[in-house]
């Protein structure tokens, strides 16, 4: 069973639909710690403000549950950023799974938000397995995770940033695999087969 974490983080419908399209089997949208602990895979979606998402995760106790999970967890977009060490968005500490700082893009010669399709490069990254270069993914974000020891793939928008983070059983994508066409579907499949 795959659990998609249900918390105040915007629309999760597109993630559910993407899982349905790839035939992911049983998917549950839940905030129940028991369901999250018994799931084979957990997906943490997220849209909007990372500091609001963090506040919600901490208040509900979901933060602690997430950190205790030993099976594969995938954070998407803001769901990835909340797993980082700290974010400039609201100047709050993240859950600290990924050793990366989340910073705001400076609109100096680049558009902010970074919106649209960009190439993702990550040799040996398990989530990109079976995809041939160039891999394009869909992004919508104004904050980015800096390059860190946990960076498994990189994109460039003015500066290089973490497209995929990976640490232990946790993975995170800054882009939206659920909106990234066939390449995104493959990335989700790769996560499900971790």
């Amino acid at each position: 069973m795959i659990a998609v974490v249900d918390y105040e983080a915007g629309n999760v419908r597109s993630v559910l639909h993407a899982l349905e399209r790839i035939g992911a089997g049983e998917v549950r949208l839940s905030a129940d710690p028991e369901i999250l602990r018994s799931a084979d895979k957990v997906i943490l979606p997220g849209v909007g403000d990372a500091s609001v998402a963090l506040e919600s995760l901490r208040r509900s106790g979901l933060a602690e549950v997430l950190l205790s999970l030993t099976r594969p967890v995938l954070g998407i977009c803001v769901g990835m950023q909340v797993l980082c060490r700290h974010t400039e968005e609201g100047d709050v500490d993240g859950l600290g799974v990924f050793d990366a700082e989340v910073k705001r893009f400076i609109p100096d010669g680049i558009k902010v938000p970074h919106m649209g399709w960009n190439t993702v490069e990550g040799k040996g990254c398990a989530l990109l397995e079976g995809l041939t270069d160039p891999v394009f993914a869909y992004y919508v974000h104004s904050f980015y995770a800096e390059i860190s020891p946990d960076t498994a793939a990189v994109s460039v928008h003015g500066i290089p940033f973490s497209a995929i983070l990976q640490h232990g059983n946790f993975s995170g994508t800054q882009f939206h695999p659920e909106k990234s066409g066939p390449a995104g579907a493959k990335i989700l499949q790769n996560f499900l087969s971790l």
Partner: protein
Amino acid sequence: MVCKRIIPCLDVKDGRTVKGVRFEELRDAGDAVELGARYAREGADELVYLDISATREGRNTFTRLVTEISRRIDIPFTVGGGIASLQDAARLLEAGADKVSINSAALRTPSLIDEIAGHFGNQFVVVAIDAREVDGRWTAATHGGSRLTGRGLFEWAREAEKRGAGEILFTSMDHDGTKAGYPCGTYRKLCGELHIPVIASGGAGTVDHIADVLTEGGADAALAASIFHYGEITIPVLKQALSERGIAIRTI
């Protein structure tokens, strides 16, 4: 580097696409989901669905359609047409839309932009501006360009950005439907005044027009309807041509 986007726009009335879409392999060209899926397969980077229904039933049908699009289509899509309140935006978000496009309602009530962006994020709000050049001044218009407002294009776009718009979709009503190209200088100026992406719409007749607005005009994306629907330019041919001109384009 972020790619320039190609965005087909589909007009929907009472749940069905309008305009003479002709694709032999589609059993039902009026099926908005099928048509969108076809464009997605061909390499469209996003889709825009505009609801032109005038009735309440038409709007309800559109909301159901948005759910079906979200289920079937694996690229982002924007919905627009008649969105006049936070509730309208919330209903479409709940149905699965990635973004909403607001136009005349934002001109009437600019705080609607703050309200929707505040609840659902800047990325969710596209502010569409129709404008025409009157006595040398680009002026925002409503009702298909027929009613001029007092607002200048550039100052209105800057205000929309400040209020929380994630993108500006600018259509020149002087060029829309002419197939004579876009006003590239105006796009260049608009892009220079904003930090958010700008989508060009209205006027494309050839591949060169689209290439020009993405390069000289500096636009981040080009939206078109009839040239795609009538098969005058197909998305794979367009993308290949743009790519050959050195424009960063997603290939599939």
